[in-house]
């Protein structure tokens, strides 16, 4: 049954059938071939209860928040403020790319939107100032992946929903690893640019008065982040409520920048429905597959499978990590997550690992999937924002950052406390 599920998954996916539909088809197949009683009589009820959720509505709220922010014109101001603060480091503006991506990901829940926004603002600068296009665009693609790690994160909401893990706990757990990863990215940049200064370019020589006045432009995003994350952690608001407050604040920011209009509102609403319906079809498919796998006794089959393998807990974990890295070359973030959660998370729990910790580990692994060719959405987003140059530039540029992510995976496995300190102490 495990073989049937995994092989069926890969074959149907490679036929380019939409991912959500693949999950439905697998569920139908398992029901027909392996289940002693017809499970699909409950299909309607399962679909209804998976989408009738006051928790999941946080997803479209966060998507809407991002759609409004992207159209509000705040990205440009944020970038120039951060440029004044960090571009004195070796590597110059590359650090502004990473810092802007970090701050944006702290408010929007999506990696692709983050990469697209930063790329549209930063790319013209690189061409003007003569930066090495490879490292420069690699930093944007990699920095953009932080969007799904630093809270709020749509992917963590989906993980929490499918594995019945506390979403506030997951958000807490993602904070430190997310910031650490941003720091690692900056260290990598400094090291590379110290060894080979020609890869970097001139920074902005900002004096303290410019730096201090530029702080005003950081206030909106920092406040937004503080309110969303603060109210969730303090227990005042659920993630859904915090997201609703965030949407209201994003409207306020757009209004201040005079970018609010009827067209902008309609475009934001359409973008929100498109993105969240796309996410939801995959989530509902995963929920149905989850239901069928559980009802057909797949957890028992998995236990047997593990016992027969005779590997230790750590060795099994390594096999799983390796599987994610390989699959990540071919399958995209959210699809990779939801398609594997029903199979992998029961194994992880069975091995005695923490579900919150594994959620964060999984996020880093699927972040890598975003920047590993041939299927790496952020690579294409960044390439799309460039006016010239070949696609392989972005791929070469992203390699050092992908290695930094591997280091982070190792750190997280050796020191689980990096993720678990905040959730256990707050």
């Amino acid at each position: 049954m495990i073989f049937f599920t995994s092989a069926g998954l890969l074959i149907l996916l490679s036929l380019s059938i939409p991912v959500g539909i693949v999950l439905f088809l697998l569920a139908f197949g398992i029901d027909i071939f392996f289940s002693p009683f017809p499970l699909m009589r409950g299909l309607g009820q399962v679909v209804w209860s998976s989408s009738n959720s006051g928790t999941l509505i946080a997803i479209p709220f966060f998507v809407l928040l991002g759609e409004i922010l992207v159209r509000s014109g705040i990205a440009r101001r944020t970038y120039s403020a951060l440029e004044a603060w960090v571009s004195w480091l070796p590597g110059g503006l590359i650090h502004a790319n990473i810092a802007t991506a970090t701050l944006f990901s702290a408010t929007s829940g999506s990696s692709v939107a983050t990469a697209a926004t930063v790329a549209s603002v930063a790319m013209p600068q690189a061409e003007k100032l003569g930066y090495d296009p490879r490292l420069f665009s690699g930093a944007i693609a990699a920095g953009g992946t932080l969007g799904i790690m630093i809270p709020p994160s749509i992917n963590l909401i989906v993980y929490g929903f499918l594995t019945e893990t506390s979403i506030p706990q997951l958000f807490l757990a993602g904070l430190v690893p997310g910031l650490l990863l941003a720091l690692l990215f900056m260290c990598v940049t400094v090291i590379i640019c110290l060894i080979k200064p020609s890869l970097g370019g001139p920074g902005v020589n900002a004096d303290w008065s410019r730096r201090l006045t530029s702080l005003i432009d950081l206030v909106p995003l920092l406040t937004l982040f503080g309110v969303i994350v603060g109210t969730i952690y303090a227990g005042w608001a659920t993630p859904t409520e915090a997201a609703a407050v965030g949407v209201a604040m994003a409207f306020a920011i757009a209004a201040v920048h005079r970018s609010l209009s009827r067209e902008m509102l309609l475009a934001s609403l359409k973008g929100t429905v498109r993105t969240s319906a796309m996410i939801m079809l995959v989530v509902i498919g995963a929920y149905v597959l989850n239901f069928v796998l559980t009802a057909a006794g797949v957890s028992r089959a998995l236990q047997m499978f593990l016992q027969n393998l005779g590997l230790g807990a750590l060795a099994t974990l390594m096999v799983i990590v390796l599987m994610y890295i390989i699959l990540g070359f071919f399958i995209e973030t959210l699809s990779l997550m939801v398609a594997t959660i029903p199979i992998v998370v029961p194994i992880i729990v069975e091995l005695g690992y923490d579900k919150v910790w594994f959620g964060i580990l999984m996020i880093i692994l699927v972040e890598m999937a975003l920047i590993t060719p041939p299927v790496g959405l952020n690579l294409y987003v960044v390439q799309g924002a460039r006016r010239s140059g070949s696609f392989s530039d972005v791929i070469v540029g992203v390699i050092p950052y992908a290695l930094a992510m591997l280091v982070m995976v190792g750190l997280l496995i050796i020191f689980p406390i990096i993720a678990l300190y905040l959730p256990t102490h707050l």
Partner: protein
Amino acid sequence: MQKIVSWLKSFNEWLAIAAGSLLLGSVLVTLFDIIVRQFWVSLGGTDELSGYAMAISTSWGISYALTCMAHVRIDLLRARCASKGQAIFDIIAVLALASTSIVVAYGAWPVLVRAIKYGSAANTTLETPLWIPQSLWMMGWIWFAASALIMAAASLLAFFSGRFERVNSIVGVGGER
């Protein structure tokens, strides 16, 4: 057929705006609840209403994502083919999608029938009669099945008349994701 497809696209666009407005309404209700409970008591039921808004906007929004070609597909093999090969992949994908959507729409029906037959109400303070949100939700899935069938018919027609680029423009892999 071309006319029907472009009509379907613009109609789904309107549905998306409606679904988006429902979400926006849900944001407002949530905010109202947060404000009111500071001064008075919590209204209760906000979570329940958000759930209905989510289910309904999802089932109606999925059709829009379909006509935008926004549903994620792994086009690793597909991308290596010439236009005829790509069209074959697209046809397989849209047929799989259409048949699944019919199964789901068919499965949604008994949920509504049960709600009407037993007059089921939500087990909450609002005691919402479940047929109200569930019929709106079910119609969304039926519309998704209808949209998928129209897309499948249009792309099959284009395929058998040899217009492979046309197949790609109806049910190919979306540029904007």
